[in-house]
């Protein structure tokens, strides 16, 4: 029953089918991008600049700041 509904909503009309594909491509791209970034950040935890920067600030805060 539900499959016939899916068919009637999404697949029956080609315009709706193609439109759904393009719309989901946009969503997929954003989700894929953020997902991979999240995994990458998680995989390299402790080696990233944000972590290194934090440890530098904690370790020796007397970095000479030559901004005049």
């Amino acid at each position: 029953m539900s499959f016939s509904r899916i068919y009637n909503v999404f697949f029956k009309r080609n315009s709706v089918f193609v439109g759904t594909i393009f719309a989901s491509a946009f969503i997929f791209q954003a989700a894929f991008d953020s997902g991979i970034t999240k995994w990458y950040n998680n995989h390299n935890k402790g080696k990233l600049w944000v972590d290194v920067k934090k440890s530098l600030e904690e370790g020796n805060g007397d970095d000479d700041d030559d901004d005049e």
Partner: protein
Amino acid sequence: MINKRCLSSTNKAQISTYKTPDFGDAVKKDKSTDKGRSYAYFMIGSLGMLSAAGGKSTVETFLGSMSASADVLAMAKVEVNLASIPEGKNAVVKWQGKPVFIRHRTAHEIEEANQVDITSLKDPQADADRVKNPSWLVMLGVCTHLGCVPIGEAGDFGGWFCPCHGSHYDISGRIRKGPAPLNLEIPTYEFQDDTLIVG
């Protein structure tokens, strides 16, 4: 029966005498094809989605490669519409990563800049040598002391004031007081009708 080629397959005459085997065991009880059909369409659609996303990325990459790269931007010129700067106002534009001050000077300010005794200056330079058109003062907004960005319409000499170490520049951008050794630098620029081109 009749066995000729015919365009219409719904024609009764086209039904062949070939005996169809019984696929009864393989056919679903309720004869619903919706599940399999939806599955097939879903897989087709998923492939289409991946292709579309890949195509989009490819196009985006190509378009991105066409935009100006960092080395081109570093050599870029900046165009400023002078009509948008009223008299007595400053404008700051970014050129090669540095701020460029543009001041539309009033007649009084030009007079003030010319009245200064050049020999009394730390970095002697006449106002006429610093501007192409006395109405427009164009200079790099980087303090010659240690590279801060001075504040406009401030300081003891009605020009610019550097908040870092207190250098005062006059209305011609010349150093008048404070630790800076040189006047504010003048970039190469030219006027074209109503447009200023820095670079």
